[in-house]
C-alpha cells in the first residue's frame, strides 16, 4: 500500500467497518483469523451491507458471504485485473476522485514499456529492474506534467487501460477458476455499493506476487474513490498483536523505527542519506540518532550516523534466508525473541540445519517453543548438534506494563495486572540486563568500534526497566523547551536537530505528564466508530487515513452521513470528527497543500502507477553540498503496475506470457521444486480460529487444544474418491521438499476447479502444529515453498504443488 498511498498501514479501523456498504474479503479469513472484524462487518450487514468472499476454500468467513467465489491459490491478480479492466472500460470509476486524488492524469515517460511479462528496465543478470523508465514527464520545476484529459495516450490512466486490457473476464476465469459471470457479479456488486471496503491478510501477502496483489486493491479503491472515506479503504488485517508496532519499531532489516529507510553502505554520510531519501527522512533519522545517542549525537559528528551499522545491499537476508546464512557460517549467534521459526518457516528443514550451525541460540518465550528445543526434534541426534542454547522464560502480556499497536495503528497502553509467574522477566528487562552487561564488558575500551555501545543513551531504570520511560523516548523530547513533544505538529514544525524521538510517527503520544495511549474515553458521538478519545492512533491520532479524500473541492464532505473532516472557512482551518490528514491544517482546499489527499506521496495524490519520483528541493542548499530533495516515492520493485505471474510451483503455464511464468524477481530460498506430473495438486496453508500462528502459546492452552486438537488436510469429495480416502482417514501429503501425515477432512467446501479447461484440485492445511507442546502435531511447513515476494519478503505459504495418498 505504501507505494500507492504513501503509508503501508491499514487505512481505517475495526470500528469503522460498520460504515461500509460492501466488503470484498479476499485473502483474509477474518471470521477465523481476525474474529473481531466480524463484529463490525455484521454491524454493517445489519444495515444492509453486502459481503463478497473470494477464497480457495469455503471458509467460516464465507459462511457469512452474499457472494462466494472459490479461487485457485495465487491467482488473485488475474481476476482483480479483470475488475480493473471492467471498471475502466465501462467508466465505473469515480471521475472526480480519479482526476483529483490520483495520478491518473500524470504523463508517463515515453521510455516506459511493457512486453511479454516484463516491464522496461529489466536486467536478466541481476534479476532486478532499473526504475528510471518508470518515470513521469517532468516540467522545468521537477513537477510531473499533467494531461488535460484521461484520454491522453501518455497519461497514467491510459497506461493502466492498455495494461489491463489483456485481463478479460474470460482470461481471468481460465486462470482463477472463477466463472466469468461470477467475476462480473463481484465487480458490479462492489462498484455499486459505496463505500466499499477491502480486507486482506496473509492470504494475499503470502505469495511471490504479494505487493502487486495489494496494488490491485489500491488501484480498484482509487478508481472507485473509496480511499480516505469512512467505511472505505483497504484493511490490511495484520497477523500478530503488535506486528504494526514491531514494524513501526523496525524489526526489519530495511528500516529504522518510523519507516526510515535503513542506511546502506552507499550512503557514506548523513548527507548522502538525505540525498537518497529526501529531507523527509533526514529529519526523523537525526531525531532517532539523538534519541539513541543523547548528548553524544551532535551536528559535528553527524549525530552519530557513523555509529550505525550499514547494510550491504548484496547481503541483506530476510528472516526466511537467515537460516541459510547460519548454515553457510556467517551467523554464529541468534537472539530470538518470541517467535517460533522451527514451526513457522516454510520448507522448515532449512531452520534446523541453520540452528545446528550456530555457536549459540538464545530464545525468549512464554513457553518452551519448538525453536528452543529444535535439537530434540525426532530424527535429529542432539549429540551431533554443537549449538549452545539458552532459554529465557518470558512474562506474558498481562504480566507486564507496556503498549501495543493494533492493526489500525491504535497504540493502547496496559498496566501489569498480575506479577509474572515464577518471577520470570519481561522481555524489556531481559534486553535491559543484556545491554547493560554488554556495556559493562566494554567499559574502558577505546576501540572506535565500541563507541556505539559506550556512547549510547540507555537509561530506563536501575533494576527493572520502566516501559513508560521507553514510550516517552518514542513520544520524543523537544531540546528547545526541554519538555516532551506535545503533538506531531510540534515535531513537524521543529527544525532538524532540535527534537529527539525514537520513532517519529509516535511523537505526541506522551505529552508532558500524560500518556495518551492510556486514554479510556470511549464515547462515539458521531456514531462512526471514531472514538477519538480512546488511546492514541499514529499519526497524530488520525483514525481514517487520507481523510482529505472524503471532501470535495470546497473541502466539504461528499458523504453527508459519514462526515470525517471539513474545511471551516470561518476559522480558516481543517476541522472535523477525525484528525484531519492534511499537510497543514491552515491551508485551504484550494491551495496546493490543501488539495493533497495523499500527502506522504511526493505527488500528494494516490498512485495508480507507481512511478519513480522525488519531489522538490530545499530552496537554498548549504554551500558545497548538493541540494536535498524533499520526498521520494515508495517503489514497487517488480513493476509500476501489477502483473499476474504464476506461483513458483504451479500446475499450469502462465496464460498471459508463457515465457515469463513466475515473478522474475522472486527471492527463492528453497532448492527443491516439484512438477505438476509428480505433484499435481495445489496446497494452500492457513491458520485457524482456535490456534494462533505457530501455536507456541495456544498449543499449551488446554481449552484451545480441546476445540482444535489436530491438523488435517481438507480435500474435495472428488479428490477423496480419487485417492480412495474417507473422512478421518490418514493421508500423506508430500512435496518436493518434504512430507507429513495427517487425517483427511473430506468436504464440499472445496470443489474441483476448471483451470484453463482442466480439472484442478486444491488441498487446504492449517499449519499451527509442531513436535512439542501439550498438543504436538506434524508441521505443514515440511512441504511448503520458501520463495518470497521481492518487495515484502513474504514467503509463498499459500501455494505450492503437492501429492496426496492414503497413509
Amino acid at each position, binding site marked *: 500500500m505504501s507505494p500507492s498511498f504513501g503509508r503501508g498501514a491499514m487505512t481505517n479501523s475495526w470500528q469503522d467497518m460498520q460504515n461500509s456498504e460492501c466488503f470484498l474479503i479476499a485473502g483474509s479469513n477474518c*471470521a477465523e483469523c481476525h474474529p473481531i472484524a466480524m463484529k463490525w462487518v455484521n454491524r454493517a450487514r445489519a444495515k444492509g451491507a453486502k459481503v463478497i468472499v473470494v477464497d480457495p476454500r469455503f471458509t467460516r468467513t464465507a459462511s457469512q458471504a452474499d457472494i462466494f467465489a472459490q479461487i485457485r491459490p495465487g491467482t488473485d491478480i488475474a481476476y482483480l485485473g479483470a475488475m480493473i479492466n471492467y471498471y475502466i472500460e465501462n467508466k465505473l470509476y469515480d471521475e472526480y476522485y480519479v482526476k483529483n486524488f490520483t495520478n491518473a492524469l500524470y504523463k508517463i515517460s515515453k521510455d516506459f514499456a511493457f512486453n511479454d511479462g516484463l516491464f522496461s528496465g529489466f536486467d536478466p543478470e541481476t534479476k532486478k529492474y532499473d526504475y528510471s523508465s518508470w518515470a513521469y514527464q517532468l516540467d522545468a520545476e521537477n513537477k510531473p506534467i499533467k494531461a488535460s484529459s484521461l484520454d491522453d495516450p501518455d497519461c497514467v490512466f491510459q497506461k493502466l487501460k492498455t495494461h489491463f486490457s489483456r485481463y478479460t473476464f474470460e482470461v481471468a476465469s481460465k486462470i482463477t477458476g472463477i466463472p466469468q459471470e461470477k467475476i462480473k457479479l463481484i465487480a458490479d456488486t462492489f462498484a455499486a455499493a459505496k463505500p466499499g471496503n477491502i480486507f486482506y491478510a496473509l492470504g494475499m501477502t503470502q505469495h511471490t506476487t504479494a505487493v502487486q496483489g495489494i496494488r490491485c486493491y489500491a488501484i480498484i479503491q482509487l478508481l472507485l474513490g473509496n480511499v480516505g472515506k469512512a467505511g472505505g479503504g483497504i484493511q490490511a488485517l495484520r497477523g500478530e498483536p503488535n506486528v504494526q508496532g514491531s514494524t513501526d519499531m523496525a524489526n526489519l532489516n530495511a528500516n529504522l523505527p518510523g519507516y526510515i529507510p535503513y542506511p546502506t553502505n552507499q550512503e557514506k554520510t548523513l548527507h548522502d542519506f538525505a540525498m537518497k531519501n529526501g529531507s523527509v527522512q533526514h529529519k526523523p533519522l537525526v531525531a532517532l540518532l539523538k534519541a539513541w545517542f543523547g548528548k553524544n549525537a551532535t551536528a559535528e559528528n553527524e549525530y552519530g550516523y557513523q555509529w550505525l551499522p550499514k547494510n550491504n545491499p548484496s547481503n541483506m537476508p530476510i528472516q526466511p534466508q537467515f537460516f541459510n546464512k547460519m548454515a553457510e557460517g556467517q551467523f554464529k549467534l541468534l537472539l530470538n525473541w518470541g517467535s517460533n521459526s522451527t514451526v513457522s518457516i516454510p520448507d522448515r528443514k532449512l531452520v534446523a540445519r541453520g540452528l545446528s550451525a550456530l555457536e549459540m541460540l538464545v530464545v525468549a518465550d512464554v513457553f518452551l517453543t519448538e525453536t528452543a528445543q529444535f535439537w530434540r526434534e525426532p530424527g535429529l541426534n542432539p549429540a551431533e548438534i554443537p549449538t549452545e542454547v539458552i532459554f529465557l522464560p518470558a512474562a506474558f502480556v498481562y504480566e507486564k506494563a507496556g503498549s501495543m499497536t493494533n492493526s489500525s495503528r491504535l497504540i493502547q497502553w496496559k498496566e501489569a495486572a498480575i506479577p509474572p509467574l515464577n518471577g520470570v522477566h519481561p522481555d524489556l528487562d531481559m534486553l535491559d540486563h543484556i545491554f547493560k552487561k554488554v556495556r559493562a564488558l566494554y567499559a574502558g575500551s577505546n576501540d572506535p568500534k565500541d563507541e556505539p555501545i559506550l556512547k549510547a543513551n540507555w537509561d530506563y531504570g536501575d533494576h527493572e526497566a520502566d516501559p513508560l520511560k521507553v514510550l516517552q523516548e518514542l513520544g520524543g523530547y523537544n531540546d528547545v523547551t526541554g519538555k516532551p513533544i506535545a503533538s506531531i505538529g510540534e515535531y513537524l514544525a521543529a527544525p532538524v536537530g532540535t527534537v529527539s524521538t525514537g520513532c517519529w510517527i509516535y511523537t505526541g503520544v506522551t505529552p508532558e505528564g500524560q500518556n495518551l495511549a492510556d486514554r479510556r474515553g470511549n464515547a462515539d458521538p458521531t456514531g462512526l466508530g471514531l472514538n477519538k478519545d480512546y488511546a492514541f492512533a499514529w499519526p497524530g491520532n488520525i483514525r481514517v487515513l487520507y481523510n482529505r479524500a472524503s471532501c470535495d473541492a470546497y473541502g466539504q464532505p461528499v458523504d453527508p452521513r459519514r462526515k470525517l473532516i471539513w474545511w471551516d472557512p470561518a476559522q480558516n482551518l481543517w476541522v472535523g470528527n477525525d484528525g484531519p490528514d492534511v499537510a497543514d491544517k491552515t491551508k485551504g482546499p484550494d491551495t496546493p497543500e490543501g488539495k493533497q489527499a495523499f500527502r506522504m506521496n511526493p505527488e500528494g495524490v494516490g498512485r495508480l502507477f507507481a512511478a519513480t519520483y522525488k519531489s522538490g528541493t530545499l530552496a537554498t542548499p548549504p554551500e558545497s553540498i548538493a541540494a536535498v530533495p524533499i520526498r521520494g516515492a515508495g517503489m514497487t520493485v517488480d513493476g509500476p503496475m501489477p502483473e499476474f505471474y504464476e506461483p513458483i510451483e504451479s500446475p499450469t503455464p502462465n496464460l498471459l506470457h508463457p515465457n515469463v511464468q513466475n515473478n522474475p524477481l522472486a527471492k527463492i530460498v528453497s532448492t527443491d521444486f516439484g512438477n505438476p506430473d509428480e505433484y499435481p495438486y495445489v496446497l494452500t496453508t492457513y491458520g485457524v480460529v482456535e490456534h494462533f500462528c505457530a501455536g507456541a502459546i495456544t498449543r499449551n492452552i488446554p481449552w484451545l487444544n*480441546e*476445540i482444535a*486438537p489436530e491438523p488435517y488436510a481438507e480435500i474435495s469429495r472428488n479428490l477423496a474418491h480419487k485417492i480412495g480416502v474417507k473422512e478421518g482417514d490418514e493421508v500423506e501429503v508430500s512435496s518436493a521438499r518434504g512430507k507429513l501425515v495427517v487425517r483427511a477432512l473430506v468436504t464440499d*467446501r472445496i470443489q474441483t476447479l476448471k483451470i484453463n479447461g482442466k480439472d484442478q484440485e486444491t488441498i487446504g492445511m492449517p499449519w499451527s502444529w509442531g513436535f512439542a507442546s501439550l498438543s504436538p502435531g506434524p508441521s505443514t511447513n515440511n512441504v511448503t515453498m520458501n520463495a518470497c515476494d521481492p518487495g515484502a519478503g513474504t514467503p509463498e505459504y499459500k501455494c505450492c504443488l503437492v501429492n496426496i495418498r492414503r497413509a
Partner: protein
Amino acid sequence: MARKMVFIDTSLCTGCKACSVACKAWNDLPAEKTKRIVSYQTQADFTPTTWTYVQFRENYKNEKMQFNMIKLQCFHCADPACMKACSSDAIYKTETGYTLIDQDKCIGCGYCTKNCPWEVPKTDSKINKTSKCTGCIDRVEAGMKPACVQTCQPGALQFGDYDEMMAVAQARLAELKLSNHKANLYGDQFMGSTTYLYLLEDTPYSYGLHPNPVSPISLTIWKDLVHPLGGIAIGASAVAIAGGVVANFVMGNYAKRAKKIAESHNEGGK
C-alpha cells in the same frame, strides 16, 4: 427479575467456538481430550464439563454451500421435562426463566438426561452430580450477560428480557424471510417455549436438531399415572390385608385355626 431470553441467530454464527471456551472459563470447567469429528467439530456432545459446544453441518446443494454452525446448550424450557423427571426435586425454575439443577439436591440419577428431548444434562458418575448450562445465573442476577453472549464477536448471541428479545427475533426472522423462505424460529413453539431461542436458516433437521421436541409421553405415564396408581395399589393392598385380618378375626378364624391345626396333627392328608 423478569424472564430472560438468549436469542441465537445462527445466520450470524461463524463457528469460532468462543462461546464454548468462555463458558469453560467462567465456570472453571476443565478441557477434555478430543479428536476432530467432522468438519471443524471436535466436541461431540454435552459432558459434565462441556455445557455448550458448536455443531457443524455442511450441506452442499445446487452448487451452494450451506455451512450450518450452531451453538448448542440447555434450552431452559419453560416447561422442562427434566424437572418433571427429576427424582430429587433438584431441578427448579427461576424468575429469569432458567431451569437449574441444585447441586446439593442432585443425586446424579440421570433421569433428567433421557427425558430431555436433546439429552442435555450429563452426569458425572464419579461424583454423582448432573450438570448442564446454568445460563450463567450468577452473572445474570448481577446484571451481566451470560459468558457466552458477552464473548460472541459476530453478534450471533443476544441477551435481554424475553419480550424484547422475542421482538428482535421476529424482526430478524421477517428480514431473513425476504431472501430465505426456509428461515424459522426454533424454541418458541414447544416445551412451553424455551429461554434460548434459535433463528435457523433451514429446517431443524438440517442442523441435527430434534424436529418436534416434546415432553415424552412415557414421562407423563410415569409420573402422572404409574406413581399415583402404584401408590394406590400399595395402599389398597395394605387396607385389604388389614381388612382381611379383621374379617378373619371377626369370623373367629384365628381361634378355629388352633383347633384345626391341633386336629390335623394326627391326621394324614385325606
